[in-house]
C-alpha cells in the first residue's frame, strides 16, 4: 500500500502548525493595536463644534488662562464649561458682528444654552476629579496635550485605563510644580534623572499617595 502522505507533507504540517500560532498571535496583536488605535479611542479626532472655537487663538495667541473659562477646575470634579455670558463678556465688544459668533449671540439672546460636543469622554463608571489632580501637580497639558496649539480641540491621549495607570503607578514621571500646572509649554513628562528626582520630591511634598492606593479600584470606580 503506497504512502498516503508524501514526505513533503511533513514540512507543510509544520508550517501549518507554526503558521497557526503565528496567525493567532498576529490576530491578538491586531486586536490589541485596533483597541489602542484612534479608531477605537477617538484620540486625535477633531470634533466639530457648534461654534468654531479655537483654543489656539484664545490660549496661544491671546494668552487667556485656562481658568478664565474652566472656572471650577480647582474646586470640583468637572472643570466646567463657560456659560454663554462668559463668552459675551468679551464678544459684546470684540467681533461683536462676526457671523462665526452668531450661535453665541443667539444663545444669549434666546436664553438657550450652546450644546458643545464632548471631546474627552470617560466611561461613566470612571469617576475622574479635576480638582485633586490639579492640586497634586498634574498639568493640564499632561492629559489634554498642547491645547494652546489646537485650532479645533481633539483628544490628545487615549484615555484608556492603561494610560491612567501610567501615572497612578509612577506619579513622579508626570507631576510638576503647582505653579506650572496651567503652563502649556511645560515638559509633558519627567524623563531625565534630575527631572525624575524633582518629580519624586514633589510626590513627597504634595503627599501624593503611593501606587498601592492610587491603583486601588475604588480610587476611580465607585
Amino acid at each position, binding site marked *: 500500500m503506497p504512502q498516503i502522505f508524501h514526505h513533503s507533507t511533513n514540512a507543510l504540517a509544520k508550517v501549518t502548525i507554526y503558521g497557526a500560532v503565528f496567525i493567532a498571535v498576529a490576530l491578538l496583536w491586531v486586536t490589541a493595536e485596533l483597541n489602542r488605535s484612534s479608531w477605537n479611542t477617538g484620540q486625535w479626532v477633531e470634533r466639530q463644534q457648534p461654534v468654531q472655537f479655537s483654543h489656539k487663538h484664545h490660549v496661544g495667541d491671546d494668552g487667556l488662562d485656562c481658568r478664565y473659562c474652566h472656572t471650577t477646575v480647582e474646586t470640583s470634579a*468637572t472643570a466646567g464649561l463657560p456659560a454663554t*455670558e462668559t463668552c459675551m463678556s468679551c464678544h459684546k465688544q470684540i467681533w461683536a458682528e462676526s457671523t462665526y459668533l452668531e450661535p453665541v449671540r443667539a444663545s444669549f439672546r434666546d436664553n*438657550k444654552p450652546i450644546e458643545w460636543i464632548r471631546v474627552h469622554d470617560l466611561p461613566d463608571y470612571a469617576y475622574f*476629579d479635576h480638582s485633586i489632580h490639579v492640586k497634586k501637580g498634574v498639568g493640564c497639558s499632561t492629559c489634554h496635550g498642547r491645547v494652546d496649539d489646537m485650532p479645533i480641540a481633539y483628544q490628545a491621549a487615549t484615555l484608556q485605563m492603561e494610560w491612567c495607570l501610567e501615572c497612578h503607578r509612577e506619579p513622579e514621571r508626570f507631576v510638576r510644580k503647582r505653579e506650572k500646572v496651567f503652563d502649556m509649554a511645560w515638559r509633558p513628562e519627567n524623563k531625565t534623572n534630575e527631572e525624575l528626582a524633582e518629580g519624586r520630591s514633589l510626590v513627597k511634598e504634595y503627599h501624593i*499617595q*503611593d501606587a498601592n*492606593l492610587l491603583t*486601588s479600584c475604588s480610587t476611580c470606580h465607585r
Partner: protein
Amino acid sequence: MRFENPQSAIRNRNREMDDRHINFKLMSQYILDHQDDAGDAQAESRMNGESRIIGDADIKPAVAAKKYWRSLEELADAPEFREFVSREYPQHAERWDDPVERRSFLKLMGASLALAGLSGCVFQPPEKIVPYVTQPEYGSPGKALFFATALTLGGVATPLLARSNEGRPTKLEGNPDHPQNRNANPGEVGSSATDIFSQASILGLYDPDRAQTSLFRDEARPWTTFVGELRTALDGLRPTQGAGLHFLTETITSPSLAEQLRGILTEFPQAKWHQYEPVNNDQAHAGARMAFGQPVNTIYDFTKADRILSLDADFLAAMPGTLRYARDFAARRRVSDGKNNMNRLYVIETTPTTTGATADHHWAIRPSELTKAAAAIASGVGVGGVAGVSGETSVSGLDAVARDLQQARGRSIVIAGREAPPAVHALAHAMNGALGNVGQTVFYTDPLEVNPMDQRQSLQELVNELDGGRVKMLVMLGGNPVYNTPADLKLNQERLFKAELRIHLSQYRDETSELCHWHIPATHYLEEWSDTRAYDGTVSIVQPLIQPLYQGRSAHELLAVFSPQYDRKPYDIIREYWQRNPPAGGARAAGSRQEAGAGTGAGGSRQEAGAGTGAGGSRQEAGAGSNQQTAGTNPQSAIRNPQSEGNPQSGAAATDFESNWRRWVHDGFIPNTALPTRTVSANVAGVAQALTNNQQTGSALQIELVIRTDPSIYDGRFANNGWLQELPKPLTRLTWDNAALVSPNTAQQLGLQKAVGKKGGDVWVDTIRIGSQGRSISGVVPTWITPGQPDGVITIHLGYGRRLAGRVGNGHGFNAYEIRTSDSPWSINGVQVERTGEQYVVAATQLHFNMEDHDFSKEDRDIVRATTVEDYLHPKHEEHGEHHEGSMYEPFDYKNQGMGYAWGMAIDLNNCIGCNACTIACQAENNIPVVGKDEVIRSREMHWIRVDTYFKGDNPSTPEATHFMPVPCMHCEKAPCEPVCPVHATVHSSEGLNDMVYNRCVGTKYCSNNCPYKVRRFNFFLYQDWETPTYQLMRNPDVSVRSRGVMEKCTYCVQRIQSAKIQSELEDRKVRDGEIVTACQAVCPTDVIVFGDINDPSSRVSRIKADQRNYSVLEELNTKPRTTYLSALKNPNPDIREV
C-alpha cells in the same frame, strides 16, 4: 435481537413528533423533577401538596443550645431549613418553572445573546455638554447643593436637608440644624435621622405613575379652564353664602393653608371644612378631653426618663416626634463612656411592634385588656378611684412595674399610643400627673392642628350632608377618602355622586379621583412652597427643589382660586403670611429643645445650605475636639457650626423681614415657633368616672382584631412606592403583601399552617376569611404566624388592596378598610374567622441570607449576642475570648498606606430599633433597584444592608427577647469572596475596602457562594429601569448604575469616602473623624452605625470598637471583618420573673 412492539414504536414516533415543538412547560417540569432526585424528597412532595408543613406541633426546640432564631423553621430546625441555608441560592430559584412560553423565551434569549455580544463593541454616541447661559451665583457643576425642606405626614413635619445634583433632588437626610434634630451639646452636629417614608419620598417624586395633567371627566383640560369653570360655579354659590360648598382635607397643620381656608370660610360663611385622615389624633384628643376637658398635644422628653411605660405606644416607629424620641431614648440606653444609668422600658402592647422588641419587659395582651392593665398600674402608682376598673387582668407583674415607676417619680414617662382607646390616654395623663412627670418629662401644648376636630364626627357630618343631597361642591384636598374612609362612613360612589361638583387634588389618579369631575394633579412636596409644623410645633418652610415635573398644583394654589386673588403664587402666599404673622418671640419649646441657640446660620442665604461637599457635607465639623483647629481651614464648617456663629440678635439687618425670611428658608425652620407649654391638670375623678361608665365586657374566647397602619406603606398612600413595597417589614419580614398576623397558639387553634416552598422565599400560607358586623374582607387574607403575637388576637394592616395606586401598588394584599369602622378604628372585638382551605404565596425574606450554614462551621454560634446591663457592668464569669487563629500570611500593613486610613464600622445592637431607615437610605444613595415579588420569592432582593430579626428562647409564642441586626458587607480583611473570583472583580483596596469592580465581573457568583455573611447581591436580570426618563433624573450620579449579570454589594459608600478624601486633600489635612458619614449611618435615628478610621485610636469608631461588648460575627472563620457589632443589653427589673 429484540423486536420492538409495533404499538410502542408508534408511540415513540409520536413522541418524536411532539419533540419538534418543544413544550417548555414540560421541559421545565422535567428539569425540576430531576433536580429533585438529587435533593431530598422534601421538595418534590411540595408539588404533590404533601410538603412538610410547619404547624405548631413542629415548633419544638430541636437544638437545645440554640438561643436565637430568625424564623419558626429555624427554631424547629426543620430539614428544609438546613437544606435551604446550605444552598447559596434556593434550589428552585431558576426561572425554568416560570410559564415562559417558547416564543417569548426565544425572544428573551435571542435579545440577551445579541446584547451580550454587541454591548461591549458599540461606540458610544458623542455626548453633549450643555453649560448655562448665565451662571448661577452659587454652586458649581459636579458639586451637590443642600437645601432645607420638610415632609409632612399625618400633619407632622420631618425636617429634611435635600441633596440636589445639578438641580435634581437625589437624596434626603434629616436637617441637623432643626430643633428636633439639634444636639443637646451645641458644639456637636445634630442628627440627620429620617424615617423610611421621607427616604422613599424621593422615589415618589420621580414616580412615572403620578398624575400629570388636569382632567375633567377623564379628559385633559388646561388649568385655566378649571379656574374659569370653578369661578363660575363659585359665583353660583355666592347668593347662598356658599351653602353646599364643602372642603374635605387631611389633618392640616400648615398655618398659611389654614389661613387660606379660613379666608374662604369668611367669604362663604355657609361653607364647611371637614377633616378626615385614616390615621388621626381622635383617640388622643378624646383621652385628653376625658382627663383635662380639652384636647392637648403631648410632648415627651426621654433624655430625663429613667423608667418608661408604653401602653400600646409604638413611639420608636410610628408617632409624631418618633425620630427625636428614638434618639433620646437610645442615648439613655448607651452604657459606654462611663454612663451606666440605663433606662428601662416596659411595653404593654396588643400586637408586636419594634418598640415592644426593644423593651426590657413586654406583655402582649388582648386589646380588650389594655384598659384594665393600664388601670391596674394606675391604681398602683396612686391614681385614685380606678382600682375597681382593673378587675382581674391576666397580666402578671404589673405591681412591680407600678413600684418601679413610683421609685422614679419625675423621671418616668407613661405614654399611650395613638391607637389606644381614649380611656388609656386619660389614664396615662393621670399617671403622669400622679408620678410628678408633668413639667419634668411630659409637657402639654395646644394641639398641632390648626383646627383640631374629631375627624370621625367631621366625616359623619359630611356623609350626612351628602346623604341629604345638600352638597353642591365637594373639594377634596389630598387624601383618598373613597379608599380609606371607614366601612360605615364610606364615601362610596353612591354617596359621592350626590355631590353636584366634585374636585380632587392628589398626586395620583386614584380611587377617589376616578369618581370626581375634576382631578387636579398635586405637586410633590419637593416641588412646592408651603409651611408645616414639627411635633413640638416648630414651623418649617417647605422649599421646592425642582420645578413641578408635571402640571402639578399645590393645595395653596387650588385654594387661591376660591379667593379674590385667584392667581396668587404659593411663594407669595407663604411669604406674606409670615410677614403678617411674624413668630412671637419668647415662646419656648418644652424642655431644653430651644436652648441650643435658636436662630442659627447668621447671614445664611439659601445657597449656603449647599456649601458642603457631596458626602454629608453638613456634618463636617463632627469632631468637637478638633473644632478649634479646623474652623479656620474649613469655611463651610464655620458657617454650619452654631458655636462659631455670631449672636443672631446682633446686627440691625437681622431684624428686617427679608433677612429673617432668607434665614428661615435657609435653616429650614422658624425659630421660636414651638408651641408654648400649657399647664393643665388631670381630673382624676372624672377619669375614674368615665372609666367605670366605659367598661367593656368582652368574652375572652372571642377573637379580637387589631388594625394598624402598615409599617412600610403607612395608610396606603405609599402603595406605589417600590422601595417601600419591597422593604421587609420589621418582625415579619414580609414584602409586597399584608397578612393577618396570628400567634402560634391561635394558628393551631384555627388549623393554620405554613410551608416553605421550593424557592425558599415562597412561603405557602393558609388564607382566612375575616368578618365582622356583617362585613368581610373581600380579598385573599393570608395568615402569618408571628412570634410574640398575643393569643386570640389577629392583626391586619391598612394600606393594601389598592385598585388604582399605580403600576407598582395595584393588586397587592387585601384592603383592611373594608372591615374598619369609625367607632372602633384600631381594634374590633369579636370577629368571625374561618379557614378558607386555600393557600397563598407570600414573599418573606425571613429565611433569606441566613448565616447559620453548618457547612461553614460546626460550632453553634451566636450571631447575635446579648446580655443584661447588670452582667455587663459586673461580669460574673470570664467571657470566652476572641478567636485568634494565626495566619500563614503576613498581615497587610494598613498603617503605612498613603494617608494611613483603615475604614471600619461598628454597629451597636443595643440600640437598633429595626426601623429599616438604613435599608432605604442605602437604596436611594446607591441606586439599588427594586426586583418585584416574584424575584423576592427567589431570594433575589438587592438591598445592600438588611435588618435581620432574631428571636430568643424556646417558646415561639412568647419569645424572651427580640433583636434587630443590620447586616451590610463586613469588608473582611481576609475576605473569602476575593480568592474565589476568577477575574479579580472583587479585590482589596489598601485602605481595607473590599472593592467590587462591576466592569470586571462576569457573573460567576462564586464570591457570593463563598461569603459567609451573605451580603452579596447578583443582578440576575436587568433590574434597573434604564428607560423611564424620570428615574434617570433620580439616580445618584456618583454611583455606577449596575446592569444585568453583575454582582454588587455594600461599598461603605465609597463615593462619600472618596469625596471626603478629595476635599480633605484639597485643604491639606487629613479626613476628620465624623466627616465621612455613610448613608445608613446618616439616617439612623438611634446612632447605631458608626463609621470611621480604625487606624486612628481617637476616632469614634475606634473607641466604640474598644468596648468589651465589641465582637465579630462568625469570628471563628477568621475573616477579620471590618464591620463589628456591639452586643445588645437589656435592663430587666429584678422584681419581675421572666414570663
